[in-house]
């Protein structure tokens, strides 16, 4: 019940940026926001932060609307480098932590630990503009997490990081989540969302197209692929009821089917034709779901 967004709509003039969005992020949950660029992710985040007021609907955090009194409990990572280019790393982190209600002395103590964790302790007294983009991103993540927020909003946290650093950051985010924080993050990298989130939404042109847990969504898509490899011709299988389409592969074919029953039917029929070397039911990946739901318009 922690973060509740109910029927939120945001319009800028004639343009509807977010259209009737509803979602609930439970306390200690990790929620993923998927969407193409310009889908309305950042606008939603800005509304959660109270920077923008929705035209319709309400956003509450633990039952109360979000205001400047709740801001010390919120951590925010903006999409682009949200740091002063000319300020030194330590001063910058102290300033932002203080602004979020943290005591200067406490912040000072914590900064060292965070820099060590991200393997960048040598940058403590460097100006931010002297750091590489990936390292700036790390500092920015620290700035968002330093004051131990209860609600963390991360806008594209993994952009600009190499695979090693992505792993480092994923681990840090998971640790924070395990310590009880609620995390909402956006990405257009499906694999990150698939790996980290219990729940997610796909937003397209301001509309929530898909939402729920990963399992639910995959089930509800009602489509799965069955891959069969065999030495015999399998042409006859294509005509079975419930098979939507067939994609021939080198030694067999991939069938798109509606239900588990059809998959079983396929297997029995295939075995009748001869020995089967491989039979696999592939669950759709998030990528498939995204493309199925959004991709057509973008293709």
């Amino acid at each position, binding site marked *: 019940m922690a973060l509740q967004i109910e029927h939120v709509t945001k319009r800028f003039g004639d343009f509807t940026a977010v259209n009737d969005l509803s979602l609930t992020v439970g306390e200690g949950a990790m929620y993923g926001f998927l969407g193409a660029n310009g889908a309305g992710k950042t606008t939603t985040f800005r509304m959660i932060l109270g920077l923008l007021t929705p*035209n319709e609907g309400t956003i509450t955090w633990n039952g109360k609307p979000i205001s400047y009194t709740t801001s010390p409990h919120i951590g925010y990572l903006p999409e*682009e480098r*949200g740091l*002063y280019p000319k300020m030194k790393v330590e001063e910058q982190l102290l*300033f932002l932590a203080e*602004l979020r209600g943290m005591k200067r002395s406490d912040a000072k103590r914590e900064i060292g630990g965070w820099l060590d964790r991200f393997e960048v302790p040598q940058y403590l007294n460097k100006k931010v503009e002297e750091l590489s983009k990936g390292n700036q991103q790390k500092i920015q993540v620290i*700035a968002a997490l330093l004051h131990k927020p209860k609600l963390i909003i991360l806008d594209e946290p993994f952009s600009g990081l190499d695979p090693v650093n992505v792993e480092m950051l994923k681990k840090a985010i998971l640790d924070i989540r395990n310590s009880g924080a609620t995390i909402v993050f956006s990405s257009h990298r499906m694999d990150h969302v698939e790996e980290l989130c219990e729940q997610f939404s796909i937003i397209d042109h301001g509309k929530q197209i898909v939402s729920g847990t990963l399992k639910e969504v995959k089930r509800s898509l009602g489509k799965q692929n069955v891959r069969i490899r065999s030495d015999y011709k399998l042409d006859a299988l294509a005509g079975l009821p419930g098979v939507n389409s067939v994609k021939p592969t080198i030694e067999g074919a991939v069938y798109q089917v509606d239900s588990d029953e059809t998959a079983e039917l396929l297997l029995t029929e295939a075995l009748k034709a001869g020995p089967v070397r491989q039979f696999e039911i592939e669950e759709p990946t998030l990528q498939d779901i995204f493309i199925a739901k959004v991709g057509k318009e973008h293709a």
Partner: protein
Amino acid sequence: MREFWIIFKQAFMTKAKTKSFVITTVLVVAGIFLLSNLPRILDSIDGIGGDEPTTLKVIDASGQLKDPLAAVLQSNESDITVEATEESEKELEKQVRSEDIDSFLTLSLDETNTIQAKYTTLSSIETSLPETLRNALQTVQAGVKADELSLSSEQVDSLFTQVNFEKNNISASAKSEDELNQARILVYVLMFVIYFAVILYSGMIATEVATEKSSRVMEILISSVSPVKHMFAKVLGIGTLGIVQILLYGIAGFIAFKTSPSEATEGIGSFFNVTDINPMTLVYAVVFFLLGYFLYATLAALLGSLVSRTEDVQQMIMPMTLMIVAAFILAASGLGNPELVYLKYASFFPFFTPLVMFLRVGMLDLPMWEPLLAIVIMLVTIFVLGWFGARVYRGGVLMYGPSRSLKDIKKAIQLGKE
């Protein structure tokens, strides 16, 4: 309130710690000390190189002019010594051409006993030496003519008695000529300080705001503190920085003039009339600096919130800069005659008040209500602009994209309301 002070402190400290700020401050302080000791430094340079006494060759055809000329030059404490020569004009010209000597002088008396002098030189820029000679010869001529008319030296003196001329301005607001001259320098200097400070610090604000916006720190900031608080904390922070900087200059100036040798203070100090400064002029300078700063800084913050890239800041604040420049030109035009009618009207226009009203109040004896009314008008304008600016700012800081025209103000207010 806590966040307000954190941002205030941050705005102040980060700027105060920048190299450019420290270097500028140190350079200006050094400049002040240099300027106050300039006469002494120039003196010592004179002592090393410079002005050797000039010896000038003179062809005196009449034979009776060289000695009086030498005497006059000596009594004028000039370092020119004249030396009669028998060489011909041609020879001397040749020497001038070959640069053996700089110049020579030919003197003769015509039939009416008028001195005919010819100064021959290659240099066309030299003016002080011929001028000194001309003045000296004028005196010699007066003597020659007086002799011719058999006038006594008392009679000659009485001929040259100075007129007793006194200006008496009976306009109610005018100060005496002496006071005016004193005030003019002080007002001019302070006008410059106000002008530069307002341009410099309001430009700083606009750039700061645009930097925060373009680096997206703004989103973090205004999710922790309201944009209005942020804006005023910023304006106050940079304002305090400006006051500190100007105070440093003031203290440096004071110390410099107090400690520099008396001769030097006589030179520049008397020029500025440090001792006779009207304290009210300084009070008005502070008041109009503060008001001018807050007026323009609020405007600058408003404008800075509209651009998304620091490169666009200059373009956006151009109208504002032009307004300060216009105020300065108006005020400068009034230094010679502060009673011009258009200045009176201009001094009540809030964007011109800091400079124009300061000029008038510094140079004229205005009735109290005039500066007070101008101050009230400014305060109201600052208040209105602050209220309006806060509304624009709220939306402006969230607006990205190619915004570089004043039309975006409307868009920003719209966005701020939503």
